[in-house]
């Protein structure tokens, strides 16, 4: 069969809502687009551990600390699921991580903002995980099987992230005047970056149309953004906090994407350092396993 015929059959399968699996024929463009999107998604989960991770030692109570550790651990898990799903497309995780560390791969711009107060951890859970859920739920029906299945698993875990964030905001909003102000400050800081998580306006979104045709994407950036606002505004009202007035500064969005956000350098540096410092562990574990190959199987039997 020639490529045109294969492509036609591929699109017919997509139109019939069939799932595409790793060994099925797929157009190069589809494969490349998925690798790009899924790797960016995986990187975002991993880099996303950093802004919250830096509050684990300073969480106000033991309960909050245990919860935050569980959440950050989940995000590491999400990264692992997604790297695994991306590898089914014929790339290696090692190569993807190299691209991230070299600064040539993108991740969500939201993680380049700082977390100066404990309320920022509440705002991240509520708004950032909330926006992520809005983006991710339609991906559970994405045409690529391994991506869709990873997203089902991830979405099951995300709900806890959003609720623990709102719970932090609730405690602060019901607290002292200083705590309420801290909560409002965090909402002010995270509101616009959270809205930017849905990506550029539809008119400027260069990958959207093809992505919709391939059923990788099912709603446009603006549709999802609107729905998020609709859900979130009453939640802010319940907290007695006010949503900032104004419009999205797309200039800021593009600057952060270009690497000029408040924490871009710091985040990548932290990842590089962690990767370098863990290098000897990865090497040693592999050397040990090679020396004792199949030892475990024999021990079990």
């Amino acid at each position, binding site marked *: 069969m020639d490529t045109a015929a294969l492509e036609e059959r591929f699109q017919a399968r997509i139109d019939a809502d069939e799932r595409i*699996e790793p*060994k*099925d*024929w797929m157009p190069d463009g589809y494969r490349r687009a998925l690798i790009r999107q899924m790797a960016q998604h995986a990187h975002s989960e991993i880099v996303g551990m950093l802004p919250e991770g830096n509050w684990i030692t300073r969480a106000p109570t033991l309960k909050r600390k245990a919860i935050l550790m*569980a959440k950050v*651990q*989940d995000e590491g*898990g999400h990264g*692992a*699921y997604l790297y*695994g*799903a991306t*590898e089914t497309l014929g790339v*290696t*995780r*090692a*190569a993807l991580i*190299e691209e991230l*560390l*070299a600064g040539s791969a993108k991740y969500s711009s939201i993680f380049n903002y700082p977390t100066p107060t404990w309320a920022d951890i509440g705002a991240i859970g509520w708004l950032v995980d909330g926006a992520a859920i809005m983006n991710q739920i339609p991906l559970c029906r994405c045409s690529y099987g391994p991506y869709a*299945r*990873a997203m089902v*698993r991830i979405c099951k*875990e995300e709900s806890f992230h959003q609720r623990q964030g709102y719970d932090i905001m609730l405690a602060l909003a019901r607290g002292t005047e200083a705590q309420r102000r801290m909560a409002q400050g965090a909402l002010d800081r995270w509101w616009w970056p959270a809205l930017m998580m849905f990506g550029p306006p539809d008119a400027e979104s260069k990958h959207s149309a093809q992505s919709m045709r391939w059923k990788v994407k099912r709603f446009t950036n603006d549709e999802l953004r609107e729905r998020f606002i609709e859900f979130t505004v009453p939640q802010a009202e319940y907290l007695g906090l006010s949503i900032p007035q104004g419009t999205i500064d797309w200039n800021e969005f593009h600057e952060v994407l270009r690497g000029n956000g408040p924490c871009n350098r710091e985040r990548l540096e932290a990842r*590089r350092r962690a*990767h*370098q410092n863990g*290098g000897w562990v*990865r090497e040693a*574990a*592999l050397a*040990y*396993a090679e020396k*004792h*190959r199949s*030892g*475990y*199987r024999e021990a079990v039997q």
Partner: protein
Amino acid sequence: MTESRDWPLYEVFIRARGGLDHKHVGSLHAVDARMAIEHARDLYTRRQEGISIWVVRSEEIVASDPADADAFFEPARDKVYRHPTFYDIPDEVKTL
């Protein structure tokens, strides 16, 4: 940062509850089977999603070829008489 040698890939199968089959849940990298099982516990059963884990090196899995699926599964297609609904049994006949 130039290393591109990763730990081997394992596929993970989990039995969610007694009485159920092990089901494929995803993959992970580990240096050996013992580490794969421990990592699978940390990665795939953080909320008590399983009571038993199998792991197997991904490269050990042999799969049928999706490109040949039509021809490969064709022999079963015209054998509708293998299904109970193929047979018309009069209403008067019970418990059959």
